[in-house]
Each structure stands twice: as C-alpha cells, then as structure tokens.
C-alpha cells in the first residue's frame, strides 16, 4: 500500500523544526521512519506534514559521561548498539538493542523515535524505565525533562505534547558493582517481545540486596516496573529461594488480556520464567564485577 499525500519539510535546525511543529496542525516528526512509514503505508496515520529531523546536526550525537548516556534524536539503534563507550557505561543498552527488529531496521530506526513511538512491547522504553532515565522535550515555549515513569501513559501514548520534540534521551550509567540482566521471548527473531524483562541488582558487601530494579514490556499497555518482585528481593540475600519468590510475585503485573498470539495465563508463566533468568544473569554478572 502507498502513503497518503503530505507536505514534506526537511528541518535545517532545531528552531526551524520547533517553529514548524508549532505552526502546523497535524504535523508529525519523521525520524527513522521505521514505525511511522509502515503506519502511513497502511494509512493508519495521515499527517498533514512530515518534519524530517535527519539533517539537523545537533541531533546526531551521543554523549557519555560518568553518570549517564545522552542520546541525540537521530542516533540510530545500530550506532548505539555498537558504541563501545555506551556499552562500558551501561551494558543493558546493547543487550536490549540486539532484540530490536533486525540490523537493516536498526540501521535507520532511532532509539529516541522508538521511545516516542511507545509501543508497549518495545524494548528501549522498558530500558529507559528500568535505568531511571528521562527524555528532554522541547517546544517553542521551552524545555522540560520528563522522567520515564511519567512519560509512558498507555500503548503508543506519552506525556509529550503535540508541539514538543524529544531532543534527547538520558540513560543513567549502571550503578557501580551492580549486576544486570535482560531476557526476551518472541516467536520470531526481531519481532516485538511477547514479554521481555530487565534487571539491575545492587547489593551491599555482605551480599544483601540493597536495590533491586526490575522492569518488563509486552505485558500491559506500557512498560512497567515489577515492584512486587523488587520488594521480594530488597533486604534479602539474592539466593535461589528469594529469586523464585520474586518470580512468582510478578504474576499481577501482567494486565494484557488474552490476544491473538497468547493467553494472559501464558504471559504470566513467561514473565515468571524470564524474571528467574534475568535474576540469575544479574547475580552472576555481579559476581564477575566483584571478582
């Protein structure tokens, strides 16, 4: 199928893009186009104007500091995945990015675009939530930072106003010495996750969990923290029994109803299994970090 008519505007600067977005009703930002163009080909969306941000130099950079990674709006999934400094600051990004579609799609699709698209089964919004990250929204009237937990509202719905452009996203670095893990299940390689889970586990010197963070996607209408499972771990030793208890505690987090692919009961089993896997990964990663 073919996309409907639209006006095309290749923005030359951030101000140019913001001004155009402000004054054009029905306009949408075009980043990698890997979600927007299929939707237009299906005629599920018909924007009046596409504001292409790919030629704005400021958006083409990644900054890695000791406390985090700031990803510009047109950084491709694939560039982030292969970036050694990004990997050193937070290995969860590469682990998750390898599960986002296929290389030819990651070559064009942007990470910030994926965060904005907000598919409830998408990996990177979940990683943003898991790491406690945020996005920077800008409009003609100013700039604001939106933390991940406030950004995601519902399937394909975010706190971004229609005249706001997300100029960058910030993923905090992995806390020093923390263990981490990521696991996903999809029917075919590169599909959106039926469920995926990420974990960051920090412990004190005696091995007691001081901060367990768990998040999942594909199980509801937006990425979610698995707080009941986190509570089952905090203040305890991360042994087999605690991990099994945490996995069981994830059941209520699944709110997605039975769908054409699987039942809700199936997703609950899946989530518990994936949670056990990522916790085991996190514990062994932490041992390696200490050794």
């Amino acid at each position, binding site marked *: 199928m*073919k996309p409907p008519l639209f006006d095309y505007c290749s923005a030359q600067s951030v101000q140019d893009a913001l001004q155009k977005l402000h004054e054009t009703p029905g306009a949408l930002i075009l980043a990698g186009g890997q979600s927007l*163009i299929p939707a237009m080909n299906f005629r599920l969306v018909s924007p009046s104007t596409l504001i292409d941000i790919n030629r704005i130099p400021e958006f083409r950079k990644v900054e890695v500091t000791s406390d985090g990674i700031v990803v510009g709006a047109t950084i491709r999934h694939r560039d982030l995945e292969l970036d050694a400094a990004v990997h050193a600051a937070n290995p969860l990004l590469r682990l998750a990015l390898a599960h986002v579609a296929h290389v030819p*799609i990651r070559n064009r699709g942007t990470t910030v675009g994926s965060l904005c698209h907000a598919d409830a089964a998408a990996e990177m919004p979940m990683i943003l939530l898991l790491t406690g990250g945020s996005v920077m929204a800008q409009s003609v009237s100013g700039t604001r930072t939106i933390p991940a937990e406030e950004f995601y509202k519902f399937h394909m719905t975010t706190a971004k106003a229609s005249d706001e452009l997300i100029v960058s996203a910030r993923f905090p670095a992995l806390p020093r010495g923390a263990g981490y893990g990521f696991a996903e299940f999809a029917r075919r390689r590169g599909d959106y996750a039926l469920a995926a889970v990420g974990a960051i586990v920090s412990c004190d010197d005696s091995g007691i969990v001081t901060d367990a963070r768990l998040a999942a996607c594909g199980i509801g209408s937006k990425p979610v923290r698995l707080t009941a499972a986190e509570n089952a771990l905090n203040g305890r030793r991360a042994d087999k029994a605690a991990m099994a208890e945490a996995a069981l505690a994830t059941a209520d987090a699944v709110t997605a109803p039975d769908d054409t692919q699987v039942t809700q009961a199936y997703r609950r089993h899946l989530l518990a299994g994936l949670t056990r896997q990522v916790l085991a990964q996190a514990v062994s990663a932490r041992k390696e970090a200490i050794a």
Partner: protein
Amino acid sequence: MRHKPAIAPNIPSVSADPTVEVTMTVNGQTVTRHVSPRMLLTDFIRHELGLTGTHVGCEHGVCGACTVLIDGRAARACLTFAVQADGAELRTIESEASEDGTLSELQKAFAECHGLQCGYCTPGFIMNIRAHLESGEKLDLSDEGIRDMISGNLCRCTGYKNIVAAVRKSAQHFNRK
C-alpha cells in the same frame, strides 16, 4: 447511482502530486529526478529508474525483499521516502554483476549452493549480506550467527539451509581476498 464505473476518457499518466527535486548516486551514476514526497524509495528505484531488481514484498519492513544499501548500510527501501535519499549514495542488486553479466562471488555462491528458487527474495538477501561482508565487523559464521544475520529476510521457497551455506561460502571467499 451508477454501479459500473465508465471508462475514463483520459487518465493522466503523470501524478498530479506536487514534486521536489532529488539528486543521488545510484550504483555509481548520478541521477536527478522530480518526485512526490510520498514516493517510496522502492517505487523510485523501480518506476523512476527502471531498476526492477529491487523487489517489493510487504511494504512494511517485514520481508526484506526491498533491502538496498544507503550510504553503505543495508536499509528497507519501502520504509524510506525517495526525498530522504537526496544526496545519498545508493546501491541496488544491479551493482552486483559486472557490465558483461559476470556474477559477483556472492551471487555465484547463491547459485552454487542452490540458495534460491523463484529468486523473489534474493536481491534483498544479497544486499543485506553485502553490507555485512563490507562492514569490517568480525562475522559470526556459525549457523546461529548466519541465521541471525539473515533473520530480517524471508524466503518462501528455498528454506534457509542452502542460503546459510551460500552466506558462509561467500564470506570465506570475501575474507580470502
């Protein structure tokens, strides 16, 4: 109310869409055309340039038949507007064989390993593998590694075993060069 449409007296053969000018290099040759912003790069390559080797399977990024190289990287031509490729360097399947029709080593490997039947998916596979071969990254040539590499390309007739063999053969040849 009419139930049967009458034959229209004159359907314009040129789209009435407003157009913009684009210039890009395609297989080493510079081309300039006027295109509608909504023209997909697949349609540009096939209908404006007449290079019909780039195939269209699904138009939503799933099948990989339309894969081309944009500035050296494999990408879905069906998920790119032609206007976005303004100034870009494009390579399509037509860049593989030489002028006299001699197949590239990659194409030969597909033929020798029986990596194709109808050939509909083949241009997409070849361009995707071409990008991997030239990426300079160390390739994982285990079955698992190759299957990951080609996971974004669907073949409906050959089965993947022979395609995996073709990728391995061409990669070994490429490394020896």
